[in-house]
């Protein structure tokens, strides 16, 4: 079943224009594997992206896709889930998309806690626009827009997600698609907003943070005995002290998702409700205005 499903995803996918070796290939493949493992067929999944190389995630995933605007995947994705709770909704994009222009939506999505999964392909660079500094670029990073080195401190997505109150925070690495797929499975299953930040190398424009570099510098939490992913402040300290160079599930906590808090929100998807009911309720509706 799962294998067939992966094939099904691939059949719907467009042919890729990513650079050979781009980390994002592994992200798509891992997601296909995770969704297949969860027995979710392509037509029940919607992937919403912003703009960037990573924004083409849904072209290649092979599920339904909404390629929205730069930085705006999350509002669209949240609304889709609210409109049709039966869909599995994945939002995806890049570090510029999600933590630059889109960081406001990110933090509000975190606290709104709609049941979607957000995958950020974090390559510490603006790929599609051919190599400018991104908000996760390290201080001093030299790019076309920062010939003298980036002057800003980088955004720390994991710490922000933890501070923002996220219920599921994880980090993956394109160099380990197996772990990534496993994380994705858990994230999709998590009820509420889940973040997966993926270190996904840009082989064309970031020559510092290469596969090799990540491989040497990332601590794999799956191998860290005694790491407690249920203590938010401990997780914060751990991430901070490791300068974010971790992979695995950083933190998880059950919390009621947004939909569960909504008055009147029905078990049946909103999109399938009868629209003509109010006409029958005319007297009652008008009574509110008398």
């Amino acid at each position, binding site marked *: 079943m799962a294998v067939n499903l992966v094939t099904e995803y691939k059949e719907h996918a467009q042919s890729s224009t990513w650079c050979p070796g781009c980390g994002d290939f592994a992200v798509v493949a891992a997601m296909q594997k995770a969704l297949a493992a969860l027995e979710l067929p392509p*037509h029940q999944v919607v992937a919403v992206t912003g703009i960037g190389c990573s924004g083409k995630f849904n072209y290649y995933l092979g599920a*339904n896709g909404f*390629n929205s605007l730069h930085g*705006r995947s999350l*509002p669209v994705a949240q*609304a889709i889930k609210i409109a049709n709770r039966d869909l599995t909704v994945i939002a995806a994009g890049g570090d510029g998309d999600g933590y630059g222009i889109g960081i406001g939506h990110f933090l509000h999505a975190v606290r709104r806690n709609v049941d979607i999964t957000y995958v950020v392909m974090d390559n510490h660079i603006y790929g599609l626009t051919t190599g400018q500094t991104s908000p996760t670029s390290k201080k001093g990073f030299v790019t076309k827009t920062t010939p003298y080195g980036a002057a800003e401190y980088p955004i720390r997505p994991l710490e922000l997600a933890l501070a923002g109150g996220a219920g599921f925070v994880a980090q993956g690495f394109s160099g380990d698609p197996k772990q990534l797929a496993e994380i994705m499975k858990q994230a999709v299953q998590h009820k509420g907003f889940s973040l997966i930040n993926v270190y996904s190398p840009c082989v064309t424009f970031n020559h510092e943070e290469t596969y090799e570099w990540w491989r040497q510098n990332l601590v794999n939490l799956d191998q860290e005995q005694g790491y407690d992913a249920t203590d938010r402040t401990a997780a914060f300290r751990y991430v901070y002290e490791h300068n974010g160079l971790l992979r695995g599930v950083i933190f998880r906590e059950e919390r009621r998702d947004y939909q569960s808090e909504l008055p009147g*929100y029905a078990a049946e998807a909103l999109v399938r409700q009868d629209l003509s*009911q109010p006409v029958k309720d005319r007297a009652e509706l008008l009574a509110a205005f008398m």
Partner: protein
Amino acid sequence: MTNADFNWKVGGAQGEGIDSTGEIFALTLHRMGYYVYTYRHFMSLIKGGHTNYKVRISPVQRRHRGDGLDLLVAFDQGSIDFSLPEMSPGSAIIYDSTSFEGRIPEGRNITLIPIPLTQMARDLGMVIMKNMVAIGASAALVGLPQDAFEGYLEERFGKKGDAVVETNRKVLAAGYNYALEHTDWRKPLPGLPEASKGKKRLFMHGNDAVALGAVVAGCRVVAAYPITPATEILYSVLKLLPKYGGVVLQAEDEIAACQMAIGANYAGVRAMTSTSGPGLSLMSESLGLSGASETPLVIVDVMRAGPSTGMPTKTEQADAFHAIYSAHGEIQRIVLAPSTVEDAFYDMQRAFNLADKYQVPVIVLVDLVLGLSKQTVDLEDIDFERIAIDRGKLLTTKDEVDAVVARLGHYKRYELTEDGISARALPGLEDAVHMVLSYEHDEEGNEMEERGMRVKQTRKRFNKMRSLNMDEWALRRTGPQNPDLLLVGWGSTEGQLEEAREQLTAGGLKVAHLQVGALYPLPAAAIRKEIEAAGKVLVFENNYEGQLLELIKQKVGHYDKVQASLKFDGDPFYVSEVVAMVKEVA
């Protein structure tokens, strides 16, 4: 005609309960069977600053606040000063003699009626009840029975216990009696035809009608960010939606709100956002997204005075240019402009149907006066039977998808069709997995830049609106054919223009009135006919640039006989101003 009406107003400082006082008065008279029309003057601050609430009371339906003022209740001298220009000859001012001594300029035929409103309220209950004293006094002087407000007192204070009801009743009675005893100024309300008495009608403003219209039209997600004067739409919708499983999302900003509306529409649920100018300015990129991805979108913009933050509590009709032209690149869109509460109700259905049918953004422009002026509306004019939900080419079942697949081999979201409209499949349907996107694309939704397909997709996006004929329904016209003068307006000005037309007609002028209900596409052919048949044309707008007139110049033509009559001080037209502007040129 205007003489038959009665105009009442209460004015004071913001935070003194002026609004609720006005609303008690208006609602009670409304329930008695009068047509009331209310107008709120308020400011973008919470306490202090002048505010007032005017109620026009008439046996017939009125669409604006009225020019004159028969009885003013003033809690401070500022309220007197502010409203003096409106006061009719023979009118009166009840003022709170506990706090100040009312003054009016010499020579004005106005009766000053000092009543120690605060003192009486304090003595009998608590200070805030000065409003009830004032209502009692007003009731007495306009010839209402003392128990006219009885029902309302029960409804409003019943839950708080009999004692509270009783205190209010006492305070009101005291005001009533004090007034009868201390002044002989009287002006009775207009008579009420027997058939009207106690007739059930609606009391709502344009924002209520937008909310009701949206829900009845099938809207189930409203995503918005609070902003004056559009927030009331949210309040109304919050009352109506949860019963239908609908969701009101308070977004983090207007960008998110509009993107959410797009997302929900994509998922197949009718969704909208409501905002005012500053929010609309943040939605340009969303307009582009809706247009390029061909995802339906409905935006309601309750227009306040700009530019920028401007005057948030004042009215204007100056967002038309932005609504029609904003967003880089080229998309199609539809811009509606209701003139009345009823229009607002029906236009929401129209907006959702058009958005679904043409898969474009639809913007509904409501001016602040229309949005916030509560008024009496006849029950039969909010006719749910006229509501027909038409979702256009929407594939909602596997069978429908199968039919497409049988025809095309596979589902194509952006199929090039005769009419330019491609069937939209709900995400979630088997065999209809598809992409929608903001990039240029081929029929399958693949991003591409191939010249030929680019041209075809562009043509398709524009051609699909060819079947839309605004000329047929977007104009409302009164008066004789081939008039010497044609008054043109849009939005809430209809009431004033109509009364002005009646006055001018009575004065012997051959005047017609054309109210324009859609700005884009402009019903150009129909407007041209009207202009050509008229001797002189005046376009009345609450803005500086004459935006409708500019559109007419662009889409209809330049005519020396067409002129703009503009008011842009944040205040709606008075009928007398309309008439004066006409006299200047006629």
